[in-house]
């Protein structure tokens, strides 16, 4: 008799089951690909679910135009390697208005370039299901999020309309215009994700590994100077430090941590010995208490 399934084998099986269920029951699913480590794991699981076929849905990236350049290069390479269609959507209206995280603040910027951009893309392509790589352990308000999260025709998340989820029986029924956001790695923790990346040799954006990079210190955070749009404020200087990123997003909003961890085991080692949670590096969570809850109701992932 074989051994008991390990926790990663069980998590993997659950995620694959969820991904297959979506493809079986929805007519036009899409996988939202944020290029980060969670997306990397989700994409890998999708490939496993349908092997030897490629996943039968496109990848979509809502590009805010402020992503790290290395992320964009990695994104294009992965889509080509996996044989997947890649849809890149930019909120052109936002670009025309010159929305930037520096001048408009992280809250308005995120709302327009991410949330609005996502809604535009979902409407344009009429996707009825969208995979996202969010995990329940990321943030308190996500702890009760469903795996199949129902959204109204105007993309709103209404806590009262969320359906009870029992066993592995997911209610996938929707009316025209409504959609479901699906989180296949809901039950994974940050450690699970890293262990799985290590075990399965999943490629990730090099920014996760420590290297000497140009950074400025701003509001107590290290912000990488990824291009010349980052204007130095009085007193700020560009320093070269060995840094890496625990989480990846828009470069002006994503803090680097000083680190020498240049291999995957070293990254995991550092994560296990560190004393702060990964979302601390994301400015969106600092805006206001309950900000995630509010953003979700408005259509944010």
């Amino acid at each position, binding site marked *: 008799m074989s051994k008991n399934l390990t926790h990663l084998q069980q998590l993997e099986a659950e995620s*694959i089951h969820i991904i297959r269920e979506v493809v079986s029951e929805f007519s036009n699913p899409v996988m939202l690909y944020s290029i980060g480590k969670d997306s990397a794991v989700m994409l890998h699981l999708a490939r*496993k679910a349908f092997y030897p076929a490629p996943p039968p849905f496109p990848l979509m990236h809502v590009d805010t135009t402020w992503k790290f350049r290395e992320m964009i290069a990695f994104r294009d390479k992965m889509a080509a390697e996996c044989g997947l269609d890649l849809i890149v959507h930019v909120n052109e209206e936002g670009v025309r208005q010159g929305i930037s995280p520096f001048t408009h603040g992280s809250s308005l910027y995120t709302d327009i370039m991410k949330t609005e951009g996502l809604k535009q893309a979902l409407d344009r392509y009429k996707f009825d299901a969208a995979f996202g790589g969010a995990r329940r352990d990321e943030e308190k308000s996500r702890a009760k999020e469903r795996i199949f999260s129902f959204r109204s025709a105007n993309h709103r998340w209404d806590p009262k309309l969320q359906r009870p989820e029992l066993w592995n029986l997911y209610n996938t029924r929707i009316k025209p215009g409504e959609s479901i956001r699906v989180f296949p790695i809901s039950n994974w923790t940050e450690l699970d994700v890293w262990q799985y990346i290590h075990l399965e040799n999943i490629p990730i954006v090099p920014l996760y590994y420590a290297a000497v990079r140009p950074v400025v210190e701003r509001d107590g955070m290290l912000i990488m100077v990824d291009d010349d749009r980052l204007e130095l404020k009085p007193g700020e200087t560009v320093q070269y430090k060995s840094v890496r990123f625990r989480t990846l997003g828009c470069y002006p909003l994503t803090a680097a941590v000083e680190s020498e961890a240049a291999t995957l085991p070293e990254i995991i080692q550092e994560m296990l010995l560190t004393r702060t949670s990964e979302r*601390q590096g994301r400015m969106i969570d600092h805006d206001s208490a309950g900000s995630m809850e509010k953003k979700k109701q408005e259509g944010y992932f």
Partner: protein
Amino acid sequence: MAHQSELIEEDILAYLKSHEEKTMLRFITCGSVDDGKSTLIGRLLWDSKMVFEDQLASLEADSKKVGTQGGAIDYALLLDGLQAEREQGITIDVAYRYFSTDKRKFIVADTPGHEQYTRNMITGASTAQVAIILVDARKGLLTQTRRHSYLVSLVGITHVVLAVNKMDLIGFDQQQFDAIRRDYEQFAASLGFGDITAIPLSALGGDNMIEPSVNTVWYQGPTLMNYLENVPVDGDSRAEPFRMPVQWVNRPHLDFRGFCGTIAAGTIRQGDELRVAASGQTSRVARIVTMNGDLPEATAGQAVTLTLEDEIDISRGDMLSALDAPPSYARHPEANLVWMHDEPLQPGQIYLVKTATAVTPGRVTAVQYAIDVNTLEQKQVQTLGLNEIGVVRLELDRPISFDSYRQNRQTGSFILIDRFTNATVAAGMIIAAAPVEPSQAVMPAERSGAGNGLPRRVSLSEAAASGTGVSVVDLTGYREPLEFDVSDSFLDYLGKGNRILFRLRDVEQLQAVALLAYEQTLSFEFDRTAEGVSVLLFKRGLRSGARVSGDDGTGI
């Protein structure tokens, strides 16, 4: 987050290797805030070092601001969100928490509050393997203890921890602990749990949470963490006959046809013979395909892709099964149903029935009886409302493959979906196929006995043991004359005011039941139904004798 921090620092690869072997456990905690449930979960998160510094900082701040421990760390606040949600008017239901030790990863289903308790608890328990039932040592067993335990047994959890919390407030008194444990074991005897482990705890003080407490030297059993890390939960379903609901047919090109699904029971190897439950067609497993290479075998819990040696017609909704032990295939399952929606059940109305294999239109044709979750008494009702539980008969538009829920939680469960609102309105657990379907009156040969004319002896002790609302005795499979063996527990069950429904093949079997009633001074009601004959057996005059003393004052 510094468990095993020395190994992490000195040899991260060895650490990673050892953590690749970790298993996983899902459990649910049942109890109210007053029992210290949030403190208990918070403490487990805390002691497994899964709390980060930024979280600790806000915990310390919150403890001073709104904590209930006089400024000291209030572990319950780790789970908060809930208080904030309540203020914001957001629905509170099931929240999932995560922590891990060197042996296991844990997923905790936390079902807060009194509101919608049944619905939330059933939801959280549906994926749990272990239930922690919290009792306040000062109060002992309450109505809610009984309710929680019943729901836990209904959902098929067999490993139960009776967490006797707040032992510090009764001076760690062994006698009181033993009395609570005995009370509980006596009460739970009819619920069919596999094992009950009573642990004297103080979640607040940490007694017997992780390390054995010096305050309870008389206690020799495991600490809570010790129990959670070691309770064996896997393997049960692997020895069962093979089941795999086909989720997706993978057909990238003409030369490959893979059947994808999650194995619900059993183990499969290359070359094994399989049967399609609905059509009866058989074939052999050619390959078990994965991206990391073909597997020689796969087992319950794994999501796999199988290719078969023969081209047979299989699609989503079919169930692949062991050759010699196929699942039921029928249109009329009987089930325990938990109603989860504000709009009550409309018997006769079409709902969508989603099982592991298929979404099938169907209706509830009859509510046999409802169960009072506080007293476990049965009552005759026309319909089920929010948070009510009953035994119902379903009629599906077409037959489906299924097992009884007791046999398999994956292939024996279903949800009901409202066709118009798409809401999930109920959760179901199949008891069995209804006795006789009009088109299918042939009895299984193995049940017809040796044909020697001797009466068939039927033991009635099992029906009584299944005190989870499953008190149906199905006699429709027997063709020969019947005699009953009656156990004390069976009579005891009736003596508590429960009723037992006998399904008869024909009116001739009535004589055996009538004789049983005569000899045991029982009464019965007789009904002729569309499918045959049914008899409701009960003890007259005892219908209200089963109440538990003590109430938790919640009024629910």
